[in-house]
């Protein structure tokens, strides 16, 4: 395939995270190459930083959270998702085992210390949303940024926090060690439905609209690659997946990694298309806690372009 820009830089905030597994699969399985792309993957200290790199022009394409496209619209940046990678956020709210009796629902988090990856991050909003939904006031809990790594595990083990809203592998690690009890789990279809009443897009591939307009073939190639990746993930066994990712990813603890893959498998998008209700629920969650966004008039149709993914689905 002859694309306009075969050399691409891609940004991601924490590539080894299972959240971004489709990216690693596409890379390792050579799907980018098959599409005639040469992708350099830049890993950032967080999703926000990879988005900043996109806006700043140092990367062309980002695998990041869908909510970024909504936020950017409010900021006057035209950024579009082109394919959905995760249909459930994969965020889990859990409480310390010893507190499990006292905290049964998010509403009981009043006065509790809740660990989130970063203040203002989607894990933070996730708790806010859950508390509000359960009839509590999100402001009544204290939110502590603990990151998404060993620091988060440490915080829970040391008893610095009473509840945690985080992603895998932190959650799987804590679960495996028996430190926590899960209250709300958006890694599964069932859990997500319970929380959001429908699906809720998580990781997507997004680009600047200018770039999409200028390089449609390239974008198509990207989407094709990710689509292949999603299809592969749909059928692959856990062993296949573990064998495909770089060894370094499970060097820490292979069993844990397998467990986490197992737990996350359901979250990956099947079609790559974000459903209408998913977009709405994402927007609803954001506007609830962000005055600026609430004021902005967000046009959801400008957050996702489904033409590429539809073409990719037709092609394959």
């Amino acid at each position, binding site marked *: 395939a002859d694309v306009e820009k075969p050399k691409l830089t891609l940004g991601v905030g924490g590539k080894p995270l299972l959240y971004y597994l489709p990216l690693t699969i596409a890379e390792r399985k050579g799907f980018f190459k098959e599409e005639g792309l040469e992708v350099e993957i830049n890993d950032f200290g967080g999703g926000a930083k990879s988005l900043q790199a996109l*806006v700043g022009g140092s990367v062309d394409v980002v695998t990041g959270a869908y909510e970024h496209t909504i936020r950017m619209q409010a900021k006057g940046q035209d950024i579009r998702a082109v394919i959905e990678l995760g249909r459930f956020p994969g965020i889990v709210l859990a409480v310390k085992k010893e507190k499990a009796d006292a905290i049964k629902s998010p509403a009981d988090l009043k006065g509790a210390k809740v660990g989130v990856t*970063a*203040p*203002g991050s989607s894990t933070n909003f996730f708790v806010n949303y859950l508390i509000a939904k359960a009839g509590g006031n999100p402001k009544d809990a*204290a939110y502590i940024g603990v990151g998404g790594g*060993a*620091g988060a595990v440490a*915080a829970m083990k040391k008893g610095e*926090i009473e509840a945690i809203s985080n992603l895998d592998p932190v959650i799987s690690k804590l679960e495996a060690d028996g430190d926590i009890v899960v209250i709300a789990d958006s890694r599964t279809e069932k859990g997500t439905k319970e929380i959001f009443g429908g699906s809720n897009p998580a990781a997507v591939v997004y680009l600047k609209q200018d770039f999409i307009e200028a390089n449609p073939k390239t974008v198509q190639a990207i989407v094709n690659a990710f689509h292949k990746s999603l299809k592969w993930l749909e059928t692959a066994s856990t062993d296949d997946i573990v064998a495909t990712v770089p060894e370094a990813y499970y060097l820490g603890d292979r069993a844990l990694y397998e467990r986490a893959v197992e737990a996350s498998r359901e979250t990956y998008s099947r079609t790559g298309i974000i459903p209408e209700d998913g977009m709405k629920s994402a927007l609803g969650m954001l506007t609830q806690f962000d005055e600026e966004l609430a004021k902005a008039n967000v046009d959801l149709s400008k957050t996702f372009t489904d033409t590429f993914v539809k073409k990719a689905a037709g092609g394959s």
Partner: protein
Amino acid sequence: MRRTTLLAMQVGVGLAFLLVWHLLTAVPVSGGKPLFDPFFFSTPLDVLARTWKDLVSGELWYHLGITLTETVLAFTFGAIGGIAFGFLFARREILASVFDPYIKAANALPRVVLAPIFALWFGLGIWSKVALGFTLVFFIVFFNVYQGVREVSPVVLANARMLGMNERQLLRHVYWPAALTWMFSSLHTSVGFALVGAVVGEYLGSSAGLGYKIHEAESVFDVTGVFSGMLVLAVFVIVIDTFVTAIEKRLTVWQPGTGAATAQG
């Protein structure tokens, strides 16, 4: 130069800086957009307005208080540690030579990576931030005090030893005053680093403090919030440094000073 002239010039530079910043961020150029992308750069007026709002609302003071505590603690412990070890190593050459490579290696460990370990050991409260700031301040002060002690004039030292001074007295009357200028030079640098340590610590995991506020603002792409946080930091460090300078002036009165070769007019 008189104090008022100096102050006027300082303020002038500050205003000039704000003006340039304003021109770059708030005034659209040809393309209709300002030269500096508003996605990354807030305008000075917005930042000042936001800072003012936060100050008035009182919320900022709480966070500022936390960061201040951490900074002061990190600075104090780091400086004391650096001074103590600097003296110890300078006086015990053998210790210095044996541990030299390890100290240098320790100084090169990225603090950001250590943050989880600090969180584990010291919890998520202020102490893990203090630890982070400490590791920055300590090395800067240490290397300077170490060098400062070794730079003592050999004649003055020999004289003091001939006066019969023991190690403690030498420390007090010779090494300490001789190393003072070196020490203060390092303290000026390390005030800033103490703050950086505290803020980065908060940024990486905490529930309060300026770093927390900045991180929060950053997560929702609120540049004005980020810049406002940095403005507060900047003002803040100037205030702390003023204290350091005042102490320095007191402790180094004996120096000839710049006016030494000039008689009173």
